[in-house]
C-alpha cells in the first residue's frame, strides 16, 4: 500500500513541471490536481517549482539601446526592392513562346552547322613552356592573429616579442611534407607561453616542431587598461618546400 503510494508520488512529481505549464492532457491534469489535494509532500514540491518559475520570470532583462530597432529599420529599407517585373498580357506571352519554339525547330532543320559557325578553329595547340623556379629553399613562415573581436573595451591582445622560427627537419624534407599547423597559445600575465593547443595539425613531426617553437616564444602580455591579464593568440606555421 505504502510503496504503491510512493510510486504514485514519483510519477506525479515528474509531471509537476508540465502541470504548472498547463501542458498535460485533461485526464492527467485532473489526476495531478487530485493528488495535490491529498499529498502534502508533492504540494510542497509544486510550490517550490512554482517559485522557481516565478524567480526566473522576475530576472531583470538586459536593457537594449532604443536606437537598435531604428538601426534595423534603416537597414531594412536599404534593401533594394526587386526590379519591377512588367507582366505582358497572356496572349503576348504565348505568342513569344510559340515564336521561340518555331525558331528552334527551323534551326534544327539545318543539321549542317558549318555555314553558321565561323571557320576559326575552336582550339589551337598552345606551346607550354616549363617555367623553372629559381631554387628556393624550404621555409617555415610564422604568422599571428588574434582569435577574437575586441568586445571588451581597452583590451589589448598579446604581442609577440621574440620567436625562434623552426627549420625543416630531415624527416619532413624526406617525406615532402607541406602545409600549415595552427596553434592556439595562451599567454600568461608575465608574457610566457602558458599552454599550447593544436587546432590544425599537419604531421606529428611538424606539430611537435611548432609546439616547441611556440613554447619558447616571448610576448608582451595582454592588457585590460593597464592591468596585465591572460590572453589568447593564434599562431600559424606555414611549411613550404
Amino acid at each position: 500500500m505504502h510503496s504503491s503510494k510512493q510510486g504514485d508520488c514519483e510519477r506525479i512529481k515528474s509531471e509537476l513541471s508540465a502541470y504548472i505549464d498547463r501542458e498535460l492532457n485533461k485526464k492527467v491534469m485532473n489526476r495531478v490536481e487530485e493528488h495535490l489535494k491529498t499529498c502534502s509532500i508533492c504540494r510542497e514540491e509544486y510550490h517550490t517549482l512554482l517559485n522557481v518559475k516565478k524567480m526566473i520570470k522576475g530576472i531583470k532583462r538586459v536593457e537594449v539601446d532604443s536606437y537598435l530597432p531604428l538601426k534595423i529599420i534603416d537597414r531594412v529599407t536599404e534593401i533594394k526592392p526587386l526590379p519591377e517585373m512588367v507582366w505582358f498580357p497572356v496572349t503576348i506571352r504565348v505568342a513569344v513562346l510559340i515564336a521561340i519554339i518555331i525558331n528552334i525547330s527551323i534551326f534544327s532543320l539545318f543539321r549542317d552547322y558549318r555555314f553558321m559557325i565561323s571557320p576559326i578553329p575552336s582550339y589551337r595547340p598552345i606551346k607550354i613552356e616549363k617555367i623553372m623556379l629559381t631554387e628556393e629553399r624550404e621555409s617555415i613562415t610564422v604568422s599571428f592573429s588574434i582569435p577574437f573581436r575586441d568586445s571588451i573595451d581597452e583590451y589589448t591582445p598579446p604581442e609577440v616579442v621574440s620567436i625562434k622560427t623552426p627549420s625543416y627537419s630531415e624527416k619532413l624534407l624526406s617525406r615532402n611534407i607541406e602545409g600549415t599547423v595552427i596553434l592556439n597559445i595562451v599567454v600568461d600575465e608575465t608574457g610566457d607561453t602558458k599552454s599550447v593547443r593544436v587546432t590544425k595539425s599537419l604531421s606529428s613531426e611538424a606539430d611537435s616542431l611548432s609546439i616547441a617553437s611556440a613554447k619558447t616564444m616571448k610576448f608582451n602580455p595582454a592588457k585590460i587598461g593597464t592591468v596585465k591579464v591572460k590572453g589568447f593568440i593564434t599562431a600559424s606555421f606555414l611549411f613550404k618546400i
Partner: protein
Amino acid sequence: MSINKERNNVEETFEKLVMDNYRRVFNYINTLVNDYELSEDLTQDTFLRAYRSFKGLRRKESFHVWIMRIARNLSINRMKMENLKRIRFVSLFTKRYNRELIDSVSDPVLSLEERAKEDEEKNIVKKILYEMQPRMREVLILKEWEELSYAEIGKVMKISKKAVKSLIHRAREAMKKRLEREDAFK
C-alpha cells in the same frame, strides 16, 4: 505602382514587428551568446534575414516562433565562427576592479552603484541561470520569458515536445537544487 504600395505595406508591418519584438529577440540571443555587442549584431542580422524571406511567411501570427528560430540558428552559426568559447574564457576568468567581466558584459547599461542596488536575490538567480547548461538555460528562457508553449519551443530548438517537457523538468529541478544550496528561498 501596386507593387510599390505593397512594398510599403510590408515595410510598415515589418517595422511594427521590429518594434514589438526586438527586446525579446535581443534578450534571447543574449542568453545564448552572453555578449552585449555580439547580441546587438545578431539581433540586426536576425531581422534582416527575416525581412528577406518575410513575404514567404504565410501565417504572420507565428512570426514570434519563426524569428526565434532564425535568431537561434544565426547565433549558433556565429558562435561556431567566432569560437565564442575564447571570449567566454576572457570574460569569465579575467577580473577587472575585482569584478568578473561577465557582469559588465551582460549588463553594461547599469552603473556600478545601480548594480549594487539591484535586488540581491535576482542577482543570484541570474548568476545561477548563467551557470547552467546552455540548453537548460535556453529552454527556461523560452518558457518563462517568451512564454512559448512546449510545441513552439520544440519548433525553435528542433526537438520533440516530449524532449522539451523532460528538459524543462530537469532544468527546473536543477535550478531548484542550486537555489536551495544558495538558500535563495525564503
